[in-house]
């Protein structure tokens, strides 16, 4: 073993093969150090963002990083409109509303669809899967203009329900994809047992499938929530005063009023917080959900 790649690649496989608490070689120690360095590099921009958000604008724009500058919540106060600016609450509520409702609708549509694509599959179910996935590959921006014109005509511009429809369509393919793989994972005996009992479709869904796939539902919901919360292109075009979402609100913070760095960092932190919390709380499910969704 001479190259770094080899060490990096080799160490873990042996480590997994070795039961926990087994021998610890120098190599393992090296790999652990490397892991921590990488972890720190990945987290550094976020740590810097959070630190800067608690600095004064003046300290935030020094030529050398001010790690130990006095902390202040001025950036947050400004973000929440203390200096007379707009309050971020409407935008945060809009984002939460759009993300949560669209996720619920997505799940409600995706579970039956996934059922019809895996447990009791329709003929040519793989073609249907292709169709769903291919809608994700079309450039969304190509549909943006007609959607804008339609929204204008039917007076749905700047309406959060319209955004919910868009986000539902945006996340549905991925959700069906993930849910299908979770359902395909269920042993068929269970369904047979349920049908022998004379249980109807709804009963089967509720009594047999739901408990088994609920972790899958949770991780699918999390992914949909994240993508809906993050979306900006459609929101910036289709929303305005009433339905403005957080990412759009965030861009208005880069003002030409001189220094704004601490305030932008505070805004970015607050707006990312819901996703961060949800993601951290459910990271095990995220790992499982993404991979199951991907591989089945």
């Amino acid at each position, binding site marked *: *073993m001479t190259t770094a790649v*080899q060490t990096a*690649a*080799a*160490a*873990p*496989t*042996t480590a997994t093969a*070795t039961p926990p608490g087994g021998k610890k070689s120098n190599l*393992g120690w090296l790999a652990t150090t490397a892991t921590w360095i990488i*972890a720190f590099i*990945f*987290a550094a*921009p*976020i740590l810097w963002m959070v630190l800067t958000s608690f600095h004064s604008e003046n300290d935030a724009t020094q030529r*050398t*990083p001010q790690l130990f500058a006095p902390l202040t919540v001025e950036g947050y106060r400004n973000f929440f409109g203390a200096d007379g600016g707009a309050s971020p609450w409407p935008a945060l509520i809009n984002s939460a509303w759009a993300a949560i409702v669209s996720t619920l609708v997505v799940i409600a*549509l*995706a579970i*039956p669809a996934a059922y*019809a694509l895996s447990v*009791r599959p*329709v*003929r040519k179910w793989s073609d249907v899967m*292709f169709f769903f996935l*291919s*809608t*994700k*590959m079309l*450039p969304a*921006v*190509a*549909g*943006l*203009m*007609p959607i804008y014109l*339609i929204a204008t005509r039917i007076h749905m511009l700047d309406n959060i329900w319209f955004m919910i*429809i868009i986000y*539902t*369509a945006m996340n549905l393919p991925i959700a069906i994809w993930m849910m299908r793989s979770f359902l395909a*994972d269920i*042993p*068929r005996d269970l369904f*047979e047992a349920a*049908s*022998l009992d004379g249980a109807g479709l709804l009963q089967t869904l509720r009594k047999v499938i739901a408990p088994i796939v609920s972790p899958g539902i949770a991780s699918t919901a999390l992914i949909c929530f994240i993508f809906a919360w*993050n979306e*900006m292109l459609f929101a910036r075009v289709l929303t305005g005063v009433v339905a403005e979402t957080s*990412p759009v609100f*965030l*861009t208005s913070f880069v003002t030409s009023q001189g220094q704004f760095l601490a305030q932008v960092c505070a805004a*970015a932190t607050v707006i*990312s917080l819901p996703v*961060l919390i949800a993601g951290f709380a459910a990271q095990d499910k995220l*790992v499982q959900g993404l*991979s*199951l969704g*991907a*591989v*089945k």
Partner: protein
Amino acid sequence: MTTAVQSDNAPGPDQAQPPPQAAPTATDPEGYPQTAKERWIRRAPLLPALVFTIIVTQLPFVATLAISFFNWNAFRPDDRRFVWFDNYVNVFTDADLRKSVFTTVILTVVVVLVSLVLGLGIALLLNRTFFGRGLARTMIIAPFLIVPVAAALLFKHAIYNSTFGLLNGVLRWFGIEGPDWISQFPLTVIEVQLIWQWTPFMTLILLAGLQSRPTDILEAASVDGATGWQTFTNLTLPHMRRYLELAALLGAIYIVQNFDAVFTITSGGLGTANLPYTIYQTLFTAQNYGLASAQGVVVVIASLIIATFALRTVSGLLKDEGAK
């Protein structure tokens, strides 16, 4: 090899289950219902999602197709007329659009490949037991959980800024005066920001792939005296192939469409305008609906061709599973 993810709920390696044989009604030899009524009952749960998707994603595209044959600039409402393929001629003679195709390809390929390689390395590192593993994993996952436009703003102003950015600030500690990153390496800085954000995504998928490797085979290999490198190339990589392919596919789907980073960091300047940005600009800066629609149609057709190839990967996976 039909190995599959080991899960608590569905132990056993055999995932290639045929449709249920004990279906309540008569089925043909492949397990599909034979009567029309039964077929519709099967389709019923699928229909809401299918109809919804067709209405919201396909109908606007039909409108795009129609508008692409019109000379329609919103600034000139009186001059809206049918012009056949004029807009398409403009699309194919537009040097900027060609360049943005190229930029999109570079951006996507670089970001996907680098995040995949990094993601695999990190997944391997995380797939060990060591002190504080949970925290290290949390730290690595975090970038994926930052709102993309917030991440782009953060990198533009707090990291890359030549005067007060973190990057040059840290270099100054060592007495080095760093360059102005954004104007010197415009496409690279966007790629780095996206790689930072998407590597965790790749890591997550690949980590689950690693955890699903059959431990008995790994142990056997270890007993047989296989070196770590041999185990990696002979066992781990083949097992990981599908995970890698699908991580790449999902990553590409999102990165091809990236708008936030290009829009925020460079405003499409310095040769960083990708396809979504270019179409956006035709649409909203030039208000040229006709041309933008034609651009959109061409891009959609091109993506469909590419997607067909990409979907073969998926198709292989579905067939594996559907095979009986």
